[in-house]
């Protein structure tokens, strides 16, 4: 019983990595730009899809494909901000939400057109021999996922806290007007943040595609789940996003393992609804309740 539980927990941590990567990206975007990015799940899927195409159709090795796709997704994120979001800096929350919804609809349907509905699994060239750590069985790919996620988050954390860009981001996040006054380029910082956030989502998609499968119809659910994590962790909290992601992964895994797989996806939503009722500011975060 205990063994099974530990296995579920470890599986949950792996899923948690996917969630955490997506949620960190979304937190950066939401926390900084106050934009609810409904296309987040689409960037996630696109990352996976592009990697599949490179490895499957063009025969590029997995390890090489990853950085190529990340760069491409980075550029794409910048382009989206330039073409769409930069025009909406002063627009209402609703307008921004509608734009990202439109983007999401466009992306998901275009991907369906191009890639079809079949789930794609990315060939990584890594053998599928499971490793044994005590009672826990884990494949190399999943292990790599965990390592890669930790590495990516560490890189982002370093970037935010120890580089000039990162300092700019933090300044804009805390006090936009003051940041502008001292000459920090707000729009550029937003663009960088959006690109960073969506690229993290893409990385998550790449890893998921390697471990399981990716397909375009996952995008919507992925977006909503990412938001669930962000809300659980507190909108705008970096650490909260990570912990929230891992928590969701583990809870879903335990629920799916012990109770039923059918309602597995519901757990996250129920948690969020429950949480927002009791503590509108999330587990770690900033206020979500209306002013009096």
């Amino acid at each position: 019983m205990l063994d099974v539980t530990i296995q579920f927990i470890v599986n949950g941590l792996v899923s948690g990595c996917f969630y955490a990567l997506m949620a960190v990206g979304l937190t950066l975007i939401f926390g900084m730009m106050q934009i609810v990015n409904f296309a987040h799940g689409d960037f996630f899927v696109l990352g996976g899809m592009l990697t599949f195409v490179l490895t499957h159709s063009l025969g590029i090795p997995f390890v090489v494909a990853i950085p190529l796709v990340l760069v491409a997704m980075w550029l794409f994120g910048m382009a989206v901000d330039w073409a769409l979001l930069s025009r909406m800096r002063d627009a209402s929350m609703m307008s921004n939400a509608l734009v990202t919804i439109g983007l999401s609809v466009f992306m998901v349907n275009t991907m369906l057109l191009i890639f079809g509905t079949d789930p794609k699994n990315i060939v990584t060239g890594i053998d599928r021999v499971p490793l044994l750590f005590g009672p826990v069985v884990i494949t190399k790919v999943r292990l790599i996922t965990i390592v890669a996620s930790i590495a990516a988050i560490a890189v982002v954390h370093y970037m935010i806290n120890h580089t000039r860009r990162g300092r700019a981001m933090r300044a804009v996040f805390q006090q936009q007007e003051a940041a502008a006054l001292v000459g920090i380029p707000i729009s550029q910082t937003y663009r960088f943040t959006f690109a960073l956030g969506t690229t993290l989502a893409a990385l998550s998609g790449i890893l998921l595609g390697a471990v399981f499968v990716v397909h375009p119809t996952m995008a919507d659910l992925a977006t909503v789940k990412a938001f669930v994590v962000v809300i659980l962790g507190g909108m705008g909290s970096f650490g909260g996003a990570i912990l929230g992601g891992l928590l969701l992964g583990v809870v879903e895994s335990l629920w799916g393992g012990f109770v039923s797989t059918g309602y597995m996806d519901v757990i996250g939503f129920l948690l969020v609804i429950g949480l927002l009722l009791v503590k509108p500011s999330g587990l770690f975060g900033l206020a979500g309740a209306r002013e009096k």
Partner: protein
Amino acid sequence: MRSTENNILLGGLALALVLPVLLPDQFLIHVMIMVFFYGILASSLNLTVGYVGELPLGHAAFLGIGAYTSAILSTQMQVPFWICLPLAGLIAAVFGLVIGAITLRLEGHYFVLITLAFTEVMRLVVLNWVEVTRGPLGFSNIPAPVISLGESIRYSFDSKLWYYYFGLFLLAVTVLCVMRFARSSYGMAAIAIRENRRLAKSVGINPFRYALGTFVAGAFFAGLAGSFYAHYISFVGPEVFGFSFMVTMLMIVALGGKGTVLGPIIGAVVIGLALEYLRFINEVRLSAFGLLLIGVVLFMPNGITGLLFRRRKVSLSPAAQPKTAEG
């Protein structure tokens, strides 16, 4: 603007009444039925989006609740359509009350997401609770409305034409209610909340109460639309809780012009016709939709009615002179 708006609506109604006689094409009639359906749905969404200024991404839930209520009552319990319809609206309204009471306390972004979460929960419940909802199979052969007087007389309203006129009737009722709402102190209060919540409070408006009331009204009409849909299409499945209806509704409201009575109607006509007549470009249709939504938000934030009526005066005073694009 009001008188012009009234005239356009009346003109549209007159045209719609005679359309099946002028152009008795079965496909067109089907398309128009869907247009009426979307018109009711979009008007219901517009109440919260356009007047209160919140974005309930979970609005499709009420459509689904109305549809399933009608489906279950009519197929499992032989409840006649004439009772199913208002009941569907009422039950959707009750859900609206509960969900709204919980979610409207939360700030804008949270409201958007949590209403979405509620809808997703419902979709998953409907998908999995097979005993009650038949899961992915849904309900088929939902009966058409029937009038029976005693054992011998039984008339079944199952012609397209009947659905056409009943749909038009439902739409007209919806529009009348929305009009009364918009032009009354309720509408003004909702707009005040949308424009400046704090200021609205300081002049005695209770934002929560108005937002909730509007939200519930929206849920009611969405429920009615859902019931109508269920009986017309005669099949209901978990996809009614899906995001595609939501996107269509948003498109219609955005394109037509949120916060006006006429907007959702115009939007429903344009999108409804496009959806059906552009089926031949089916694959790219939905992608194009996404681009269209982006385009509308970027370049036409007040929708078609915003283009037609340059001065959008919302006042209750009839002294407002309609200023058209040429004026």
